[in-house]
């Protein structure tokens, strides 16, 4: 395991080394100490490596991630795993706003709460939140699954496209064109599989969730809905 202390090593040097990793590199397991809330730690990775970070991170940690597994033992600032393409990002604490924003793929697991705009404009990323999510989560969400074990704030799934939202607790309000839908066997299976990928298999019953998705009345323009735009 490679040990990097961010009190000693400049962040840009760390990120340069991570970006330089070639396929087949033996530098597959990195441990980062003292992140100190710095921004863009382990952003832009594109290699099948594991990066473990001990402590709280700032903005855009593991942004644009591809292939890599990034574990944050602490809380994350704005935009953790934003625009993730593949791989896994796991935050053991809370995440600030816009967690997993615009993500195309991969899995984002947050053990604590995520604040507002979690999964905003998600495009295929799967997000599992152990706590609650804040307002405007899954705004304009296009594809992927968002599963929330706690509650959701105001305007969940506003202007949603085809992402699938699952909330176990209360939803303060649904956004425009987002409706509750029946939870069918296929959805339970999909949730079960998602929890298994997140390492949470058997810990939570997929049947306890409610499903929310698009009423599909807003994203095709219809003059009767002009007032909703």
């Amino acid at each position: 395991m490679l040990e990097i202390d961010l009190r000693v090593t400049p962040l840009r040097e760390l990120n340069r080394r991570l970006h330089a990793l070639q396929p087949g590199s033996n530098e597959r397991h990195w441990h980062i100490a003292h992140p100190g809330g710095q921004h863009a730690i382990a952003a832009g990775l594109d290699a099948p490596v594991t990066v473990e970070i001990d402590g709280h991170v700032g903005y855009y940690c593991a942004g644009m991630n591809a292939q890599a597994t990034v574990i944050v033992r602490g809380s994350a600032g704005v935009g953790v795993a934003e625009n993730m393409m593949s791989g896994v990002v796991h935050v053991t604490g809370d995440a600030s706003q816009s967690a997993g924003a615009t993500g195309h793929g991969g899995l984002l697991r947050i053990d604590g709460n995520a604040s507002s705009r979690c999964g905003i404009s998600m495009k295929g990323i799967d997000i599992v939140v152990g706590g609650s999510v804040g307002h405007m989560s899954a705004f304009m969400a296009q594809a992927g699954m968002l599963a929330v074990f706690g509650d959701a704030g105001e305007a969940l799934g506003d202007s949603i496209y085809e992402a699938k939202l699952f909330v176990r607790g209360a939803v303060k309000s649904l956004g425009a064109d987002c409706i509750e839908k029946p939870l069918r066997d296929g959805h339970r299976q999909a949730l079960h599989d998602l929890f298994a990928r997140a390492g949470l298999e058997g810990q939570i019953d997929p049947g306890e969730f409610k499903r929310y998705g698009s009423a599909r009345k807003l994203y095709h323009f219809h003059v009767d809905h002009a007032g909703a735009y």
Partner: protein
Amino acid sequence: MCGIVGLFLKNPVLEPQLGALTARMLGTMCDRGPDSAGFAVYGAGAEGAIKLTLRGPAGTDFEALASAMREAELPVALAVHDTHAVLSLPREKADAAAAWLAERAPGIGIVGRGERMTMFKEVGMPDRVATRFGLAGMAGTHAIGHTRMATESAVTIDGAHPYSTGADQCLVHNGSLSNHNNVRRILRHEGLTFTTENDTEVAAGYLTWRMRQGLPLGDALKACLADLDGFYTFVVGTENGFGVLRDGVACKPAVMAETDDYVAFGSEYRALADLPGIETARVWEPEPATVYFWER
């Protein structure tokens, strides 16, 4: 942008370190607000005494000013901090001193007034501003600081935070208010005075007005949610209190940390990363439209 830091000590053992801790927090937020900086420190007060923090043009001879005030039977004690000076004087002489200054020293502004609060602000990089005023050497129970990236008004002292519109009260703000002109008009009608056209001064005045009506700090902050339009993260100091409020959309960042020894606020976690015991502190993001306050 703009950066905010705040530190409210619960453990008196840390009080001698208040300034040093706040200076480090403020320095971390330089890149969020390189235009100007300011801070308010709640230090020890003396029975029956008021502190006036004055700001003068560079080169102001505060010693001569204090001598002239003493000759006018205004018994002031003086502590000079670069372009600012703190005058301590008996409470019953405070209004007379303010009137004397307005008449005899029109170039000198009173930036803060209170039993315990002293306030300093200057244009320039926040870490240099803190060094010029000697923040690291100041002791006290709580402090609030601000680093400004100017958006609503020019890069001048008048645009620098904190703003104080009442004794021992101050406010710093990240965001911008959209109805400040109307609220300022209402508050002027209620007898408040404003020295700038800045939106943040209106928020400070609004809280002063509400607390003057008898509302406790927490209720005064709650009233902001109905009456102030725009986006904001506020951190507020009173003689014995420390409050935080974010608007309902909460697009301006905020992180808080609490231990048995202190409550701390930072626009980003970076500002809190060097605090003692932060590794085991409860760290959280304050909820939108939710009032947080602590009083001793």
